[in-house]
């Protein structure tokens, strides 16, 4: 008797939360959906922020971009915290074993003449750029709207801190943990004329107030170029120079960028497709920042790879922008 | 002197941690509560990596303490070898 009742009555009375049902219909929902949609507060805020009294908390007015529904920015990777850390833990494990292998076999000692210096001058200063990228993505997380977007910004921000830390560890592998290479790379970042326009670009982005513009300047324009030049072309030129082992140390950055690009592309595409006003605004931002980024990176790309490097990367960026509808 | 304390989730790994804590802090008191274990001591409590490794019979990274830690009271000092709680 009891068993009969159990089987007939333990039926769910609903499939998911009401706000999820309103979006996706009355059916079981994914963990991504339940963890991401309509979580952020939207109305009846009590006090205006003392730090920005013109606007409310969670105010969509902190960007010139506007959206009918901010939850249109679905993350193609469907990352919520749990799936995000699991994915990163996997990548981290591979990286850890790469770094351990590189150190154990003393592959640093077998790098051809001049490569160490080149890595210190052309790759390690990027750890500071990554710190800027960390702050710029956390900016989007703090002031952006809609959890689907703001959580992805935070994952990206933490990823950039991770990349900066891996870059620093490359330095420590090369200098036997003395920190000398990091010191030298920082001096390069601060003083070497080759790097100053890039540093100016990063500081300029950090001073911007529109979080979507920050996203365009950092994740779309600068990252596309930087990752193509340094983790694509530079890696190839190092391999040609007989330093192919270095690839083990930047595999994380390559894999990470490939994966994250899917998200970046989808964000830009969604915003552009929303309205002409968005498209024009984004096109204007892209125009400004692209010009500056190409000018800043040109001499660096030439030093790191060769005279054609910047044009090849510009081509990669243009293709991405076209694909996104710009 | 005030009491410092830490609470650990009651699980397999925590039992080794508690053994290590008891060995290195002979005056500490251990209280088994629902689903967690609370260890407290006057003024000072130290968890030593070496002692934990001895109890477990394998390498153990001190930072993995955080997987089982529920709460703490006291100023924290964390090195590669020791996690210390104290009140001044």
């Amino acid at each position: 008797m009891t068993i009969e009742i159990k089987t007939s009555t333990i039926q769910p009375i609903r499939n998911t939360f009401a706000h999820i049902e309103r979006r996706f219909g009355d059916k079981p929902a994914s963990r991504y959906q339940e963890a991401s949609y309509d979580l952020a507060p939207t109305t009846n805020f009590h006090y205006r922020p003392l730090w920005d009294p013109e606007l409310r908390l969670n105010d969509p007015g902190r960007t010139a971009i506007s959206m009918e529904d901010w939850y249109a920015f679905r993350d193609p990777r469907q990352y919520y915290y749990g799936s995000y850390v699991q994915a990163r833990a996997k990548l981290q494990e591979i990286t850890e074993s790469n770094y351990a292998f590189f150190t154990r076999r003393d592959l640093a000692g077998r790098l051809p003449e001049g490569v160490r210096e080149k890595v210190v001058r052309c790759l390690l200063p990027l750890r500071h750029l990554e710190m800027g990228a960390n702050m710029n993505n956390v900016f989007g997380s703090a002031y952006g709207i809609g959890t689907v977007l703001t959580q992805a910004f935070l994952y990206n921000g933490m990823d950039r801190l991770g990349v900066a830390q891996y870059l620093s560890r490359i330095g420590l592998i090369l200098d036997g943990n003395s920190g000398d290479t990091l010191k030298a790379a920082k001096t390069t970042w601060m003083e070497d004329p080759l790097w100053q326009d890039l540093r100016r670009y990063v500081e300029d982005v950090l001073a911007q107030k529109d979080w979507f513009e920050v996203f365009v300047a950092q994740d779309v324009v600068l990252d596309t170029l930087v990752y193509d030049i340094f983790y694509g072309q530079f890696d190839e030129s190092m391999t040609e120079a007989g330093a192919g082992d270095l690839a083990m140390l930047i595999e994380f950055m390559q894999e990470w960028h490939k994966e994250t690009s899917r998200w970046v592309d989808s964000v830009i595409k969604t915003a552009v497709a929303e309205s002409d006003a968005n498209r024009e605004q984004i096109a204007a931002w892209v125009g400004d920042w692209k010009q500056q980024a190409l000018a800043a990176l040109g001499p660096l790309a030439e030093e790191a790879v060769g005279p054609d490097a910047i044009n090849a990367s510009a081509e990669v960026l243009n293709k991405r922008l076209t694909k996104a509808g710009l | 002197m005030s009491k410092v304390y830490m609470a650990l989730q009651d699980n397999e790994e925590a039992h080794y941690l508690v053994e290590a804590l008891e060995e290195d802090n002979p005056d500490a008191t251990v209280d088994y509560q629902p689903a967690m274990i609370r260890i407290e001591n006057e003024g000072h409590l130290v968890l030593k990596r070496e002692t934990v490794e001895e109890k477990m019979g394998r390498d153990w990274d001190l930072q993995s303490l955080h997987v089982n830690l529920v709460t703490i009271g006291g100023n924290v000092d964390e090195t590669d070898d020791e996690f210390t709680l104290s009140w001044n």
Partner: protein
Amino acid sequence: MAARKLNLKERYSLLTRDLDWEYSYRDKKEIFPYEEFEGIKITDWSKWEDPFRLTMDAYWKYQAEKEKKLYAIFDAFAQNNGQQNVTDARYINAIKVFLTGVSPLEYQAYSGYAHVGRQFSGVGARTACQMQSIDELRHVQTQVHAMSHYNKFFDGFQDFPHMHDRVWYLSVPKSFFDDARSAGPFEFMVAISFSFEYVLTNLLFVPFMSGAAYNGDMATVTFGFSAQSDEARHMTLGLEVIKFLLEQHPDNVPIVQRWIDKWFWRGTRLLAIVAMMMDYMLPNRVMSWKEAWEVYFEEAGGALFKDLARYGIEMPKYAATAIAEKEHISHQVWSIFYNYTHAAAFHTWMPDEKEMDWLSEKYPNSFDKHYRKRFEHWREMERAGERFYNPTLPMLCNTCQIPMGFTEMDDPTLTAYRQSVHKGERYNFCSDGCKDIFDHEPEKYVQSWLPVHQIYQGNCGGADIEKVLSEYYRINMGKDNMDFHGSPDEARWNEWHNLQSAEERLKKAG
């Protein structure tokens, strides 16, 4: 070459602290515009002590390990219909309060720490805050996932974010966090990292999670303890922030003390709801609110403030009042919700005889004297088919937004009222603590979105209260609200367990 061994501190410093640089193309104030307006003086950010030294690789590794364990248990819980194994369906109401009232605060914490995690010019503090931000995101998401299964079998969970923005009692937690997030970055840290995380959060999580363990709620125990494993890091951050601010400049001491006074009081008012959960909503009780308060505030907090005395920091201003209130607060809040359960998305009930005896035993100084008779009277009314619901709209405290139901501690029969007049308008408060907070920053607190005022002003869908509840709040009337006895939750539970309904039992008892 033989690599030199780096210790944890050196390594963390090279991998994190050293990533920062002095800006020269932009003024630092353009990049960190909010660091000065609160009057806090930071002379040297490099003196910041990192509260923990986790690099991202280790963070991903350990957090993934925690998540893997957690979700394995969620899956097992759902597959085995774990919701049937809790002590009693009344218990589920405690976690309804949790999901609608507390989980959205985890979300607010995520946003707040992202804000300060971008705005502090010290890289050590910035990074620690970012890590807390992503942890808080973890907490809200794991809570939503843990309760997702309960939502499928019980009423009241289904519209939690919508309700958090609107429902009268949920403006208590919402205004608490809006208050912190709209404050400057240093006040936010003193409010949330120190006053809440360090001083009070144990009172929210530890006894409540032990309570879940005692009541067969595997999902809640699991997310609770898993979240707590991040909490130890957050608490350490809270203590480091305070020490850093106090060591940076003596002028910071009075500012910090005022914030501690304010946020301690704001926090104790917020926790009144936890007091009620512990004493009334757990069928199997671990400890009383009073006992939890003694262990986690009086003992642990006492040790903390003794430690901070060397900086000139004293116990929070209204600590003595809060200590006296431990005898009363849970009973008073439960009374408020019992009165207004027709307007809430969870059920209340009167404790049975055995439960009343437990309360008498745990509260020898207050329960029999002030509450038991009233509760027995309400129980009699229910038996007579006249379950008491209060039809009027309550007056709310302008600061904490709780209905005015707290009493004077020197005369617990007398409801406490305080008032202030600002620009010719009168404002009401439940306590000296709440009045002080208003008086210090009236321009901020005149903005309070007070649910009862808003209903009267017609901003919640008109004057018809039924409509406010069903359409504006989206309470499923007759399902989410009213007494537990007679609710669909109770009926389903009884059906699963082949039990008689309370109504039938009452009939038989005659």
